[in-house]
């Protein structure tokens, strides 16, 4: 099957790339290290990002979004993540895991009520799927929801919720039907303001420290009937489709981290002199840099292809799993090599590479571990 592949970004995409790069280097890069040290939520940066239109990039203009396609989205996410993976994590969850399910499965009323505020920064979104007993096996989740008149009553505990502390709009998955697995699950839009929902334990993590990760506890949480997304029992499908979009954002995050690792390692290697020459002249170092550059380009091509398919309205589950798998493993490998190239200085917080190393790891885990990505790819490859 032959397809025309356009290897040049359009003028708009280039301008978006340039603008987000400028934003990232002005507003995010100077603060990234400090945010990592303090684990403080980057409120001002998120406000500025929202003002530019970065919080609801793919939300149609009629709902206050920037009306962009997936290509523009992945380009922007890479630029943001290059500066700070933590800041980008907050932004990508708001876009892919909160705005997108509401856009695709929300009633007109839900869309009108939630999307404008999510797009312009008045609200922040989070995604409540994972539970202590349901991680990779997400569809075995145990949170429940039953209808009591005009109100859904939700009970359960969700963990590892990105932006769990600061978010005010949560996409929550709970079991509404007796069917086991995916078919018994439904998806809801739950506001932190609703009675019966609270933030529980806040995790202290290895990386992406300025992005909060928290437990969300639902105790007879009362959710208006109209806040159901789609139909009862559609939750499994909504979760999986939403994760596909989320994986685009994470793959782009990984590409951003890999690029940061490459750029910093390159700059260091050119400046550091040992044995009478820049270490960039030693073949061992050159090979690391060459491999980092190659794997980064390969990651990007996989990401762009998945984004392209999504924009065409075509299935892209296999392709985005490939992109996320490859890009995240590239990020981890590249960050590790970047630390190595820096030698002792790579181990020290004065240089950014140790942060890239800590940040990169999560990309191999969340929104589907690399093991799950391989299962997804295999399912499409072995039994298409």
């Amino acid at each position, binding site marked *: 099957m032959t397809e025309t592949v356009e290897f040049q970004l359009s*003028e*708009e995409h*280039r*301008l*978006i790339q*340039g*603008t987000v790069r*400028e*934003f990232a280097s*002005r507003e995010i890069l100077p603060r990234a290290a400090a945010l990592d040290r303090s684990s403080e939520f980057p409120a001002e940066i998120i406000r500025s990002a929202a*003002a*530019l*239109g*970065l919080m609801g*990039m793919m939300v149609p*203009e009629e709902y206050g979004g*920037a*009306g*962009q396609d997936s290509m*523009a989205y992945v380009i*922007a996410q890479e630029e943001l993540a290059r500066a700070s993976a933590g800041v980008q994590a907050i932004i990508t969850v708001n876009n892919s895991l909160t705005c997108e399910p509401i856009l695709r499965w929300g009633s007109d009323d839900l869309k009108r009520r939630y999307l404008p505020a999510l797009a312009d920064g008045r609200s922040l979104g989070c995604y409540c799927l994972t539970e202590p007993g349901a991680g990779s096996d997400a569809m075995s989740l145990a949170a429940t929801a039953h209808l009591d008149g005009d109100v859904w009553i939700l009970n359960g505990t969700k963990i590892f919720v990105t932006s769990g502390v600061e978010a005010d709009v949560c996409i929550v998955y709970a079991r509404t039907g007796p069917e086991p697995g995916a078919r018994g699950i439904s998806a809801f839009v739950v506001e932190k303001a609703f009675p019966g929902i609270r933030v529980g334990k806040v995790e202290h993590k290895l990386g992406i420290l300025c992005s909060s990760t928290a437990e969300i506890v639902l105790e007879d949480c009362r959710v208006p009937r109209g806040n159901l997304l789609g139909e009862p029992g559609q939750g499994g499908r909504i979760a999986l489709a939403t994760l596909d979009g989320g994986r685009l954002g994470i793959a782009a995050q990984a590409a951003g981290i890999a690029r940061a690792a490459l750029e910093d390692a390159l700059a260091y290697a050119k400046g550091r002199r040992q044995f009478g020459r820049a270490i960039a002249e030693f073949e061992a170092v050159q090979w690391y840099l060459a491999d980092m550059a190659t794997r980064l380009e390969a990651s990007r091509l996989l990401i762009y292809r998945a984004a392209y398919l999504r924009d065409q309205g075509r299935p892209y589950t296999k392709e985005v799993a490939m992109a996320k798998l490859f890009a995240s493993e590239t990020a981890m490998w590249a960050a590790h090599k970047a630390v190595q190239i820096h030698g002792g200085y790579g181990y020290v917080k004065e240089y950014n590479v140790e942060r890239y190393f800590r940040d990169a790891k999560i990309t191999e885990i969340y929104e589907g571990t690399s093991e799950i990505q391989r299962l997804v790819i295999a399912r499409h490859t072995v039994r298409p």
Partner: protein
Amino acid sequence: MGVNVVVCLKQVVDPELPAQEFAVDPHSRRQVRTGKALVISTYDENALEVALQLKDKGAASGVTVLTVAPAAEAKDAVRLALAMGADRAVVVDDPRAPALLGVEKAALLGAALRRMGGADLVLTGCESADWVERVVAPLLAEAIRASCVTFVSRVEAGGGFVTVKRLADDGVHTVEARLPAVISITSDESNRPRLPKIRDIMQAGKKPVETVPAPALGDVPGAMADGVEVREVAIPARTTTCEVLEGEPAEQADALIQRLRALKVV
């Protein structure tokens, strides 16, 4: 109502590129541009920001960006300016543009402005990020018979004149200038160029861009100026001199003050 504002833009090789990317062509006696990333000249962006702020406040009825450049080269700069909020663009398509000096540019800009029917307020950068000649604003003002104030950080417009803050060696002067006026802008915390919103980047494609071939401006007096010749463009050779000041600390301190004064550093 508001004033009609035109902002003159020039594209230069990105000044943020690493030093080793800077190269000079000894034959043309110009900076090598091919293959280098181009950006809008730094202070021109501040000028555009000033214009857009006037528009935001309702003091400007419209903002037009004007550039003399090869049309293909100008596309990105024009698109960015429109995305930031300019209403329309005029591109004088001139393949010679990157090699032209300020004298010649001013003449072409003047001719373009006349063809556009003039403007109430013309904003330029105080100096370009590459040649730093600082001549375009005053020469342009001469060409279109407008008042001129240079090194301005802030502009207010109303009632047929502009009130501007001019940065001078001895402080900030408040100057009033009758319209039409050409004002050259320097950077200030109040005129940091805005980033375009993502939505506006898409909208920019729909805004009008008029491309005028340079010959359509006719024979422009002053263009291809005879009076200015570039003899040499070179990267300065780095020399360090070390002057040791003798004596007791108090004497050294005195001597240091004398030297610094003589060098006009303090």
